[in-house]
């Protein structure tokens, strides 16, 4: 596995919203997972957090009620919150190296043992439940050289490549790259021939009438 930095990054507004804390959890997982693979965007988030620090420091203060400091001082010796329970899953090397931590925490198992759903002979999909928002998050696994069915979507689709690469009309996307496709882009990604391609995808916007499964199956039915 080569440690090359990505070429394609999340949209700047998404990076800003991540640093500011305004991004829904599914999109935040996508950005944070990209950050693990992208020193450039880590530096950008550090800058934008400094902007958040400066803006918060210069905000018009809202006085705390009398006794707030005393109440807080009285709690200093309370035991801290329980540390986060460490992940029950012992990940294998394949999963540890392919899927960076923010996303890995949501898998609940190793790549080889997950309940992948059949989406045709060359594609497996693993829908992930992330956060409370309406965005849909999914992991897609495509055989080398196979096409992901042509599709459009109601909202914007952000795709992060985790293994292998795919090519579409706009370019070649490899590990760490993020492609953000709006609803009007009819894109036909094809995995490159040298490797299987694993992508993490987050689609926002209202669910279309075809629904999440229909969206993937529709193109097959038309073929």
């Amino acid at each position, binding site marked *: 596995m080569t440690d*090359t*930095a990505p070429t394609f990054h999340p*949209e*700047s*507004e998404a990076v*800003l*919203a991540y640093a*500011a*804390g*305004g991004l*829904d*959890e599914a999109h*935040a*997982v996508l950005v*944070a*997972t990209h*950050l*693990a*693979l*992208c*020193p*450039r965007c*880590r*530096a*950008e988030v*550090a*800058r*934008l*957090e*400094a*902007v*958040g*620090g*400066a803006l*918060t*420091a*210069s*905000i018009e*203060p*809202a*006085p*705390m009620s009398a006794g*707030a*400091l005393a109440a*807080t*001082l009285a*709690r*200093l010796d*309370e035991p*801290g919150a329980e540390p986060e329970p460490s992940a029950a899953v012992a990940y294998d090397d394949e999963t*540890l190296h*392919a899927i*960076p*931590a*923010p996303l*890995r*925490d949501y898998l609940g198992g190793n790549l080889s043992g997950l309940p992948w759903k059949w989406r045709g002979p060359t594609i497996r999909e693993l829908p992930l439940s992330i*956060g409370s*928002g309406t965005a849909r998050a999914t992991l897609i696994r495509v055989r080398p050289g196979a096409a992901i069915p042509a599709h459009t979507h109601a909202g914007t689709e952000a795709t992060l490549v985790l293994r292998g690469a795919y090519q579409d009309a706009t370019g070649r996307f490899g590990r*760490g790259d993020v492609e953000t496709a709006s609803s009007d882009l009819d894109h036909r990604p094809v995995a490159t021939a040298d490797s299987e391609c694993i992508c993490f995808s987050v689609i926002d916007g209202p669910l279309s009438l075809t629904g999440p499964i229909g969206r993937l199956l529709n193109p097959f039915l038309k073929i």
Partner: protein
Amino acid sequence: METTTTSSTAANIYDGLVEAIAVRADRTAFAELFAHFAPRLKAYLMRLGSDPATAEEVVQEVMLTIWRKAASFDRRQASASTWIFTIARNRRIDRLRRERRPEFDPNDPALVPDAPEDADRTVWTGQIEGRVRAAIESLPPEQSDLIRLAYFEEQSHREIAERSGLPLGTVKSRIRLAMQRLRERIDDLD
């Protein structure tokens, strides 16, 4: 080296207060931090829709986190106000939005490390504070307003566009221009 400006000296005071908590559980330092940051954090949370009572509860939790996690503060990575902002931001997501805050793990085996030349490109010392403030102030109002909205309003760019009557593309391009300018100004090491 830059000369230290008055404002960065003031900012460094807060770095020192967090370190005093880390080193010797200094309650006086904590009270000073509280006096400065608690009312600002309360204002921050209220800007984002909290009622005053909930905002105070969350502020208290943030201040307790500062007390407990002071040892993990590193002024070479972020100033105290930046570090405290990230704690408040994450606490708000956790408490008020009831979502998890995903963060990358610096020790992740999958992490692509910084190139050696990246590591010292941005020098996170006390001087950065003044430079960040100056960078924000240098933005034209139509750009800095959008940046503030990103931090202080829970609104999508679509909603901002609808409310302001601006095309969505204009909102996005202004945000991008603002971010580019911030990047240039903040990284400017003279």
